[in-house]
């Protein structure tokens, strides 16, 4: 047990310094605040081992409680937390002083936190003032007892990491195992988030018969898409030259032809049109039409045509494809496009939309391309851009197979120009001269997803031998460990039972493989214990289980071949190898999943989807991306997590920069932009997403913002509102006259509300310069914004900079601990408890010693004992 001991009791002086310094002057600049705050870290001071590292069972020190602690509590605390008042429903005279066996350790931890953060006793209660030495007595005793209690809990396996894969993980696992890009698991029911916001927590992931049935359906469907049988299907192919479209356009009854250069042509050329750049002949056009071509070899590169479809910003090539696209398979769309100018501040990209208009008021359209693809080539040397769209994933015209012509059966593909270009002389247009569409499209035949399962083998002719090979390989991917011989045999027996019902080996095997995708070892992350060794300490998981834990952490998906091989060879845990693997995994694009899932859940970003006052879809998307991009920047550039509190840059695209009134940011992609202090941005706190989700639909909501900060950033969630809290009575005319801030203050002044709200509201009031969508403001209803507030401990906060300065000066350790808690909880997928405290404290110390680097924290977590631990 000695090796696990991290001294919790920090130099008492530190602790007191922290308490006493809470009201110190905050440095003038945020840089200085960050520097000073770092110096104050208790984790950076050499700590002495205050607790003896006993090998025996720790015992509660009740004697010291009675002798030293209880008298102080009676003197300074019981007045409010005792028989007379019981503020916050806490009665210190009733708490059991045995933290090791008693039931009150969690309450004592709250007491400890309130004391160390100098929140208690309140400043205004003169008679209950706590002298520095009394505070030290309480903190010292509590710290020691909590530490002993946590060690005791650690040995008692409170929490389990055995858990089902989440919906997202199931999706990614199927995509990675089968090599098919589709959102298979969307039909699974949504997961429940823990109080930390995470959706991968073992005790909240449930299972039911309906859900089990969904897994079976999903697995079968995914395999059906990954594999093929029979000869290569004849694709439906469209080859669309703009020359033909122009001919059709000119022959239309209401054709509007024009000659380029004519004074009258301007009204046409400002809109989308077809034009022959050699002759100057043009025609305005709203939609084109095409039919499939027989025996057409897809992938042509015809000479660049002088006839082009010209798309101004928001213009589109709308193509009526009639009703011939197949039901499923991938549709590949190739578009040859170029830009009319190369102005670096303007961008243009292509988006695919699919639609049908079946009868009056019965139409639909949806964006089918997962992301817009920028057009980068010049119009005199256009280049192909391609999209791959799984047809069975998109809304199709349900009438397309009717034999009658009504309702309408045709389907439309729109190639849309998404651009920030404005008008003017040399406006940026996209010029398209050729489009090809083919479905079902296969890069190769049979596709790689098929040959990954049904690979070449010399035993291919012998179903019994080959079947075992196929199963063995597949099971290893699905179970994330080698399957044993008898396990393969059991599935082979199933194969033999199924075989008579099917025409081919492959069809039969797909049925069997689908069963493996509903098996418990696919659906559940199993912490298999490593074989007993001479090693001391708590039981660890074996290396394949470690590989799984690692890959579900950083990729939300099973380990790849390299990880599996290392694990099977027993080499994964070697320190150099493990850290190199983490680095490799973070460099892999799959790590983007981790970033997105973690940030979304940590910050509760999905709440933005139920916000009714945000109607601009581009702004919403940009808001969602900003914190993800910030996390990614901090992670990939080895920056400090204190950048989340403040930094001199922001992650922006054009839409968001416009919202923030930051000039000269062009294009839809996110990039790092260095900002001035006057921009009032930098870090997570002024991100529009946070400010928007914590609004009430019309205005800022300081209480929500305060709770959000406490819960998400400081990991110090306030207790839920107690009963008997009066509502703000808005029928009272006096109250109606007040500003929101005044109302909140009024509410807080009522005794029943004060104890909680004084801990919440001041944090939120500091954000008052941001409106319900996170835009900066200096006035509310023609009155200047008052974003000053006073924390419970009399600390004054002046607006966002004051808040940042305070956090950086006084709360760096807490921020680091919060980050450790959040990332570790996500990494382990289980609730963290008191028993995890020693490990978490150690991680926090090392994070701080490593200059708070986020990338370093991930390495620290992965290499920690807690990450390898079975429970």
């Amino acid at each position, binding site marked *: 047990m000695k090796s696990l001991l991290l001294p919790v009791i920090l130099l008492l002086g530190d602790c007191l310094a922290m308490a006493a310094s809470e009201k110190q002057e905050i440095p003038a600049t945020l840089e200085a605040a960050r520097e000073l705050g770092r110096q104050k870290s208790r984790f950076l001071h050499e700590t002495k081992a205050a607790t003896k590292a006993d090998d025996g069972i720790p015992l509660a020190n009740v004697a010291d409680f009675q002798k030293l602690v209880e008298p102080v509590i009676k003197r300074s605390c019981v007045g409010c937390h005792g028989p007379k008042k019981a503020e916050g429903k806490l009665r210190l005279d009733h708490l059991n002083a045995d933290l090791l066996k008693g039931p009150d350790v969690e309450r004592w931890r709250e007491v400890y936190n309130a004391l160390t953060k100098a929140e208690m006793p309140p400043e205004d209660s003169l008679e209950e003032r706590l002298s520095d030495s009394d505070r030290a007595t309480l903190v010292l005793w509590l710290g020691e007892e909590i530490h002993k209690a946590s060690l005791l809990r650690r040995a008692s396996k409170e929490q389990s990491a055995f858990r089902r894969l989440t919906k997202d993980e199931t999706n990614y696992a199927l995509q990675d195992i089968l090599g098919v890009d589709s959102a298979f698991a969307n039909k699974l029911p949504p997961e429940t988030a823990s109080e930390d916001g995470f959706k991968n927590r073992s005790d909240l992931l449930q299972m039911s018969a309906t859900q089990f049935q969904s897994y079976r359906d999903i697995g079968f469907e995914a395999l059906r898409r990954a594999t093929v049988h029979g000869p290569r299907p004849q694709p439906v192919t469209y080859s669309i030259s703009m020359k033909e479209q122009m001919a059709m356009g000119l022959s239309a009854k209401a054709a509007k032809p024009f000659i380029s250069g004519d004074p009258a042509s301007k009204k046409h050329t400002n809109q989308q049109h077809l034009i022959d750049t050699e002759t100057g002949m043009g025609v305005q056009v709203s939609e084109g039409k095409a039919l499939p071509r027989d025996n057409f070899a897809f992938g042509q590169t015809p000479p660049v045509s002088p006839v082009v479809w010209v798309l101004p910003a928001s213009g589109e090539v709308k193509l009526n494809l009639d009703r011939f696209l197949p039901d499923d398979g991938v549709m590949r769309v190739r578009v040859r496009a170029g830009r009319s100018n190369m102005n670096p501040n303007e961008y243009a990209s292509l988006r695919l939309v699919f639609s049908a208009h079946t009868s009056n008021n019965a139409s639909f359209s949806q964006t089918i391309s997962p992301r817009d693809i920028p057009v980068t080539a010049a119009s005199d040397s256009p280049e192909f851009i391609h999209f791959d769209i799984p047809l069975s994933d998109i809304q199709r015209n349900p*009438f397309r197979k009717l034999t009658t012509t009504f309702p309408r059966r045709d389907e439309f593909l729109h190639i849309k120009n998404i651009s920030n270009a404005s008008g003017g002389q040399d406006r940026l247009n996209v010029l398209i001269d050729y489009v090809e569409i083919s479905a079902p499209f296969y890069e190769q035949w049979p596709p790689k997803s098929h040959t990954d399962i049904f690979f070449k083998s010399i035993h291919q002719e012998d179903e019994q031998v080959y079947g075992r090979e196929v199963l063995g390989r597949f099971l290893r991917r699905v179970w994330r460990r080698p399957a044993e011989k008898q396990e393969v045999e059991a599935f082979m027996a199933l194969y033999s*039972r199924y075989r008579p*019902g099917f025409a081919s080996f492959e069809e039969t095997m797909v049925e069997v493989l689908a069963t493996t995708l509903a098996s418990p070892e696919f659906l559940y992350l199993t912490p298999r214990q490593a074989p007993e060794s001479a090693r001391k300490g708590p039981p660890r998981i074996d290396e394949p289980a470690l590989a799984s834990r690692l890959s579900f952490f950083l990729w939300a998906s099973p380990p790849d071949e390299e990880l599996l091989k290392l694990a099977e060879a027993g080499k994964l845990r070697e320190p150099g190898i493990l850290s190199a693997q983490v680095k490799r995994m973070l460099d892999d694009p799959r790590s983007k999943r981790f970033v997105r899932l973690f940030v979304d859940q940590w910050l509760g970003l999905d709440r933005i989807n139920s916000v009714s006052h945000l109607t601009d879809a581009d702004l919403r998307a940009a808001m969602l991306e900003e914190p993800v991009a910030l996390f990614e920047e901090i992670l990939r550039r080895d920056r400090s997590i204190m950048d989340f509190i403040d930094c001199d840059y922001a992650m922006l695209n054009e839409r968001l920069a416009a919202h923030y009134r930051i000039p000269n940011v062009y294009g839809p992609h996110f990039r790092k932009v260095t900002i001035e202090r006057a921009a009032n941005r930098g870090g997570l706190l002024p991100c529009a997403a946070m400010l928007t989700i914590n609004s009430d639909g019309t205005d800022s909501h300081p209480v929500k913002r305060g709770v959000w900060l406490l819960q998400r950033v400081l990991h110090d969630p306030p207790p839920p509102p107690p009963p008997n809290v009066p509502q703000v009575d808005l029928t009272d005319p006096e109250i109606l006259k007040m500003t929101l801030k005044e109302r909140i203050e009024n509410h807080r002044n009522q005794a029943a509300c004060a104890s909680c709200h004084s801990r919440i509201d001041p944090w939120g009031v500091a954000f008052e310069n941001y409106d319900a969508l996170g835009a900066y403001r200096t006035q509310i209803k023609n009155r200047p914004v008052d974003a000053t507030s006073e924390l419970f401990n009399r600390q004054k906060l002046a607006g966002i900079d004051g808040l940042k300065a305070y956090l950086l000066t006084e709360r760096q350790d807490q921020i680091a601990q919060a980050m450790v808690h959040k990332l570790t909880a996500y990494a382990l997928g289980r609730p963290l408890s008191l028993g995890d405290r020693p490990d978490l404290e150690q991680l926090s110390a090392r994070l701080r010693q490593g200059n708070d680097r986020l990338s370093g924290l991930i390495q620290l977590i992965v290499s920690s004992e807690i990450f390898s631990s079975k429970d």
Partner: protein
Amino acid sequence: MNPKTLSLSRRSFLRGTGLALALPWLETFAASTPSKAGTPKRFLSVYHPDGVGLPLKSDPAWEEWSWFPRGGEKDFELTKVLDVLEPLRSDITVYSGLSHPAARRVHGHSNADQYLTGAAVGGQGPYQNTISLDQVYAEHVGDLTRHASLVMSTNGGVGAPRGAQTQSFNREGRPIPAMNRPRQIFEMLFVTSGTEAAERLARSKSALDLLIDNTRSLKRQLSSRDQETLQHYLDAVRDTEVKLAKAQRWIDTPIPQVDTRNLNLDAEPKEARIYFQTMYELIYLAFLSDTTRVATFQLGRENGEGPHDLLSLAVGLSGAHGLTHAVKKPGGWQNLGTYNRYQAEEFGRFVQRLKDTPEPSGVSNMLDNTFAMHGSASSSFHLSRNYPIISAGGKNLGFTNGRYLKFGKGNEDNQAGAGIDTDAGWNGKIEVEELPLSNLFVTILQRLGVETDTFGGQTGTLSRV
């Protein structure tokens, strides 16, 4: 023709025709429905979270916007909240004075969990629920239809303990995930049955056996706590086995084709009107085609953000949950009442539809053979007492409608807990006497043909119903 080909061709037929060619149900499939004893008896429960408006008599809003009717059993008068049901007056019953004793001091935010179960789900600590009313009936009657029950909610899934997003709980007290996407529900009911072919069922059976073996060997690796988690999986597999055995009997029964004109399968909760109507229509079609006889539908979840909070957009109000908090704002009671009125209106539309549809067996109309209830487990703000419940239909089951039935003592004017808009209420002293809602549940079960005299730990029926 082997069964597999048959089913595939039926499926592709359906796909090929899209949703346009709806065949009248009666002509095509009435004859091929397996013979079942008599006319179906159906049960529906619609649940809405967050309760209703209950202003004090002294409040000017009381006159129009208090949910409960005024007057006596027969001569009752509906306020503005329920006046949309006036045309159906003789087909409905309004109840007061009922609640689940185990939950009378539970915070309203946990109420969706216990409305149909009556369980003491408590406010904290370990959580255990019990079987819901609909599932008791489904156990009794489920084998007669392709689907034992239809479980729907706007939010879908199961939610969290004390934050249910489903009204239905199985015998183990585990939540049954609710479906929330009209298209998925439609496909489950009328397109893919999951029971396509006998072959596939037989294969499923062997696959399940193998998975159970896998589970056993995995179990040996796990701690006892993890074995419990795995037990959920094993239970799910076994439940699936039971379903398969049942499905076996449905293989030769064609999937009914229904009139899809009133469906809008891509509707989402934020398009509240279309979404509500489509969901109700799915229940109607499932009942009409005798695809199931049991349905539950939860409109949103208690306390929280999410799609349901946008449902009130249907009447131009934002934040459904917020309405209950805002009753003291100007127009607050009216806003809440307007939203409740809208819920009643949609329920009424559904009831009217049942009433207008002759029972396929020929025995009067569908409403007379259906007991449909609509309610919440909160009355005033977060208060888990005096549930506001309306029921409709069930004449042939023995229900006499056109009545306002007051139960309990001391709260004849529904003023206990009225006017509160704070959490002081839910935890307050119980001053009036209410009867257990489970007594009504026992009455319902008995009339549906289930032999029982207890539900949720309460014995006995409710007199006068």
